[in-house]
């Protein structure tokens, strides 16, 4: 301390280092207080940016940790063997194969199961709940199953006492969707009744999916878990199994084991088709995994935008502060204070603002994280949610949130301390800054008197500042547009599918049959003759795979009369030709395969053989047209081409139009119990379910939307307020000439309006591009079967315009008090 006790008595260099630091701190703190509203606004922007990013990134960590924990705790399988539908082998046979794997010693745990499709009737007093499902016969001894365990969320576990008894556990998502009581009784196929002792979570159903691409399928799929013996009795498959799940010792190569297991099975059961899948191929696992990563990607994008807004706002404010300290800086220079030391004061202000923001940000982050996780807990229940405070995340994000705004401010500070001292201490007109681009825009004359010219000239006079101001607002608007646009686009997609499906006979039901039946068979006849039924259209739906140039994905080919009056798809390209063999694809499928109308593709599809079994064959088909449905897997062929599958004159899907009167529930109750019927569903139900589930998220989405809105408003207000400060001297001069406060305000409003319009246009365009980018990177990985076309709804557009144009333009009105109370003589006297 006090080593350099030479020099000037009034300067920090003369006093001890610590008291010098104290002086700079106090001084910068005064600067801060003098502009506390702007400081608070910027700190809040930084807080929202860092807070939401840290909060959401924490959620990512929590989801990751909680699902990983769920998979570990319930010992999710590494490999699963499924026998072809209808095939079974005696108990023990699959375990025997497993034991041979890797020459023994590779398998950690293995359990056989019996998985059989069933129908579940969980109807309550109020509504008919009749859905397809699966019954899982599993090991329930010793708190089993040991692989793909059960976590009983409601009710009790199954024990040895339940073996052989009609007692099961109901999959939790289904129970939750329909708000079913913790325990109860269900009716399953063949009118058998079964009690459920509780509701359970299990890794394969952490997310409920179906083979028909339905993502949030819990509304239409009920899984039941019971003892192996019970499942065997209920389905008439005593002593038989068809499914094996196993875990392997750590460090094993699952893909290699999968190949080996496939080979072993082919040797051991040559007549039985068996599929082996790894954990990574489990549909729920796959989607959850991709979803967590994909969401984080979106948070990253939004974080960048919000940071950009915060950085620009901080930059503007510090630039303004430095500008107003120009003379003081000059004086310090004259006194010989080195530039680095002069820079301390404005830099301290910047650091204090950023620090304030980051500190608030921790609060915002904790709140947002908790809000988000409470919705997630409800939406996707897991055995345990781990939500400990993420020190690492908050530290990293906090450091970034502090550093970036801070570093941005070093630029105006550096510029300010670099000017020659004589220039810095100049006062009056010589200090006046240049006219920017104003001379270039001299010819720009808006109609009206000089009051009308002032705002335009002010915008062009300081192009960099105008640009930066617009940039901050544009960043906030872009974030808003992209975020709300994402919801818009998703809803529009659902809507598009709904409109297409409901384009005719919206009350109709789809009745799935368990296999193809002849058109004159009993089940078809009964349905056709039911007094509740007006029209029946027999169709086929067949799972197939489209192949082209190495690209392949699943299709559900619906075979129907394309001139049907009940319902027929509407085409966007090509034309219906009932006589030509060919297929009608969704636009997304065509794009993914790289085909157009008239091109051909290979379809790997089932064909009924003379033996009565199905074989898979590949056929070259022409693309005859493209339809409007947004789901990739939806494909159509004309019923005249049913011969391709050797299924002419048969049906496994009936479109049923009810007569006037009966409700959807009446129809379901009538159709569901018929032998051969797997499910009966109103065609509008899929979108109803998605709407239902989305509404759970709406509150959260609105919260985020609100936060973005506040952010945009803060940035707008801030730039308006800084702008007004910068114009204080001009305004004082105008007042000296008797120009009224409202006239001055009007000029400020017009100036902001110009900036607001530029910012809004830029923001909407950037938001739109961002939305497209997000959809392009996000949807194919998590929802490959969904064609989400980016749209921005009129409401979103209206909100953006309102924000960017109106709010920004009107922001100066918030400064009216300041303007009215302006000390005109003092402002005129101030020599900046």
């Amino acid at each position: 301390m006090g080593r350099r006790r030479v020099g000037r008595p009034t300067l920090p260099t003369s006093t001890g280092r610590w008291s010098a630091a104290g002086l700079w701190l106090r001084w910068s703190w005064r600067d801060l207080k003098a502009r506390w509203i702007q400081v608070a606004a910027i700190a809040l922007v930084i807080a929202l940016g860092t807070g939401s990013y840290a909060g959401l990134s924490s959620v990512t960590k929590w989801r990751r940790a909680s699902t990983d924990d769920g998979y570990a705790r319930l010992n999710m399988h590494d490999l699963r063997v499924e026998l072809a539908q209808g095939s079974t082998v005696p108990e023990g046979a699959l375990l025997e194969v497993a034991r041979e794997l890797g020459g023994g010693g590779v398998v950690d745990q293995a359990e056989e199961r019996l998985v059989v499709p069933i129908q579940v009737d969980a109807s309550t007093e109020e509504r008919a709940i009749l859905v397809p499902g699966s019954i899982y016969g599993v090991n329930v001894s010793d708190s089993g199953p040991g692989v793909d365990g059960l976590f009983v969320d409601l009710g009790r576990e199954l024990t040895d006492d339940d073996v052989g008894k009609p007692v099961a556990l109901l999959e939790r998502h289904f129970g939750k969707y329909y708000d079913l009581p913790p325990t109860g009784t269900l009716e399953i196929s063949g009118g058998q009744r079964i009690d459920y002792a509780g509701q359970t979570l299990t890794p394969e159903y952490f997310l409920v999916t179906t083979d028909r691409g339905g993502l949030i399928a819990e509304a239409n799929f009920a899984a039941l878990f019971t003892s192996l013996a019970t499942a065997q009795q209920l389905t008439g498959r005593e002593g038989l199994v068809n499914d094996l799940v196993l875990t392997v010792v750590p460090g094993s190569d699952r893909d290699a084991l999968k190949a080996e297991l496939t080979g072993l099975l082919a040797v051991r059961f040559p007549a039985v088709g068996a599929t082996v899948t790894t954990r990574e191929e489990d549909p729920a696992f796959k989607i959850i995994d991709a979803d967590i990563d994909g969401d984080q990607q979106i948070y990253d994008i939004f974080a960048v935008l919000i940071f950009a807004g915060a950085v620009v706002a901080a930059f503007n404010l510090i630039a303004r502060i430095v500008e107003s300290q120009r003379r003081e800086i000059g004086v310090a220079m004259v006194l010989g204070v080195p530039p680095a030391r002069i820079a301390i004061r404005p830099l301290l202000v910047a650091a204090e603002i950023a620090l304030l923001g980051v500190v608030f940000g921790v609060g915002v982050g904790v709140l947002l994280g908790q809000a988000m996780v409470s919705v997630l807990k409800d939406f996707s229940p897991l055995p345990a949610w781990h939500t400990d405070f993420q020190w690492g995340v908050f530290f990293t994000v906090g450091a970034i949130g502090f550093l970036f705004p801070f570093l941005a401010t070093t630029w105006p500070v550096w510029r300010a301390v670099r000017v020659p001292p004589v220039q810095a201490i100049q006062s009056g007109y010589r200090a006046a800054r240049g006219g920017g681009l104003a001379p270039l825009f001299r010819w720009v004359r808006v109609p009206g008197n000089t009051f009308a010219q002032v705002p335009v000239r002010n915008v062009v006079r300081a192009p960099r500042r105008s640009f930066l101001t617009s940039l901050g607002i544009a960043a906030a608007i872009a974030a808003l547009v992209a975020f709300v646009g994402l919801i818009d686009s998703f809803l529009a997609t659902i809507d598009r599918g709904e409109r297409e499906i409901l384009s005719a006979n919206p009350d109709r039901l789809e009745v799935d049959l368990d296999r193809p039946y002849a058109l004159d068979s009993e089940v078809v006849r009964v349905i056709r003759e039911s007094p509740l039924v007006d029209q029946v259209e027999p169709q086929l739906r067949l799972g197939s795979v489209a192949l082209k140039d190495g690209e392949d994905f699943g299709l559900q080919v619906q075979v129907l009369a394309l001139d049907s009056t009940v319902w027929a798809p509407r085409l966007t390209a090509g034309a219906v030709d009932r006589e030509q063999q060919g297929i009608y694809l969704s636009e997304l499928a065509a794009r993914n395969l790289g085909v157009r109308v008239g091109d051909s593709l290979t379809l790997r599809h089932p064909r009924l053989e003379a033996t009565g079994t199905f074989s898979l064959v590949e056929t070259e088909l022409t693309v005859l047209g493209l339809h409007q449905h947004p789901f990739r897997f939806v494909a159509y062929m004309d019923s005249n081409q049913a011969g391709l599958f050797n299924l002419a004159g048969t049906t496994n899907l009936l479109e049923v139009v009810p007569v006037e009167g009966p409700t959807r529930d009446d129809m379901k109750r009538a159709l569901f119990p018929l032998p051969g019927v797997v499910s009966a569903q109103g065609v509008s139900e899929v979108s109803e379910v998605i709407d239902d589930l989305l509404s759970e998220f709406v509150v959260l989405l609105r919260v985020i939307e609100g936060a973005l809105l506040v952010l945009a408003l803060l940035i707008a207000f801030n730039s308006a307020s800084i702008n007004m400060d910068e114009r204080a001297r001009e305004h004082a001069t105008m007042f000296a000439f008797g120009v009224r406060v409202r006239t001055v305000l009007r000029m400020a409003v017009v100036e902001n309006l110009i900036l607001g319009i530029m910012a809004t246009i830029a923001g909407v365009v950037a938001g739109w591009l961002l939305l497209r980018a997000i959809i392009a990177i996000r949807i194919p990985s998590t929802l490959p079967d969904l064609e989400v076309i980016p749209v921005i709804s009129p409401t979103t557009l209206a909100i953006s315009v309102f924000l960017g144009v109106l709010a920004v333009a009107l922001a100066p009105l918030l400064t009216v008090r300041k303007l009215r109370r302006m000390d005109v003589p003092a402002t005129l006297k101030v020599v900046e």
Partner: protein
Amino acid sequence: MIELEHVTRAYGEGPHQVRALDDISATIAEGEFVVVLGPSGSGKTTLLNIIGALDTPTSGTVRVAGQDITTASRGQLFAVRRRTVSFIFQGFNLFPGLTARENVQFAIDACGRKGGASADEVLESVGLTVQARQFPHQLSGGEQQRVAIARALATGNPVLLADEPTGELDFQTGVRILELLQKQSGPGRAVIVVTHNRQIARAADRVIELSSGRISSDGPPQGGKANVADLYW
């Protein structure tokens, strides 16, 4: 035209109170060219601001062109500034985004005057023609002050108030600006110039000398009125 009766302007309260103006009484008639002289801090600017309706006295009465501005409403004060007084500042305070002509036109728009001299004509009267389309930062200090004078003249208001109009200028330019201001007094118009420079004061018909907020003398300049061209400082 301007009547000041026992005008006091105090800042602050109690023992720390500063009386920028202390019981000032004076009358300035139409056609006068008055210089308010005094050292820094003597209250010159405060006096000018009060006459210009930018500031109100703590006590006393001020009448400008018949209007009592001590009792006037806010709106009336604005009206006085639009129709009665016009300011010329030491730092010029031109609008940097407007050209010279537009700065002048701004004043015409502000006072709402219809008819009379155009902005170009007023600029010409202060000796600026080619510079009309320039922006302030493209002009020299003397030219900027001419634009500021033209701006004040353009309102056609009867009271012209100039606070240290030559303070930022070199001697030669200052002399010319002073000459210009002197020419503006005449029938229907009074000009009040504030300065701390005793030499400049010699160009006036009447010098009001301030000292610590009080009038220490009021009358023709010491040593008689001098030609502006003979001044030096």
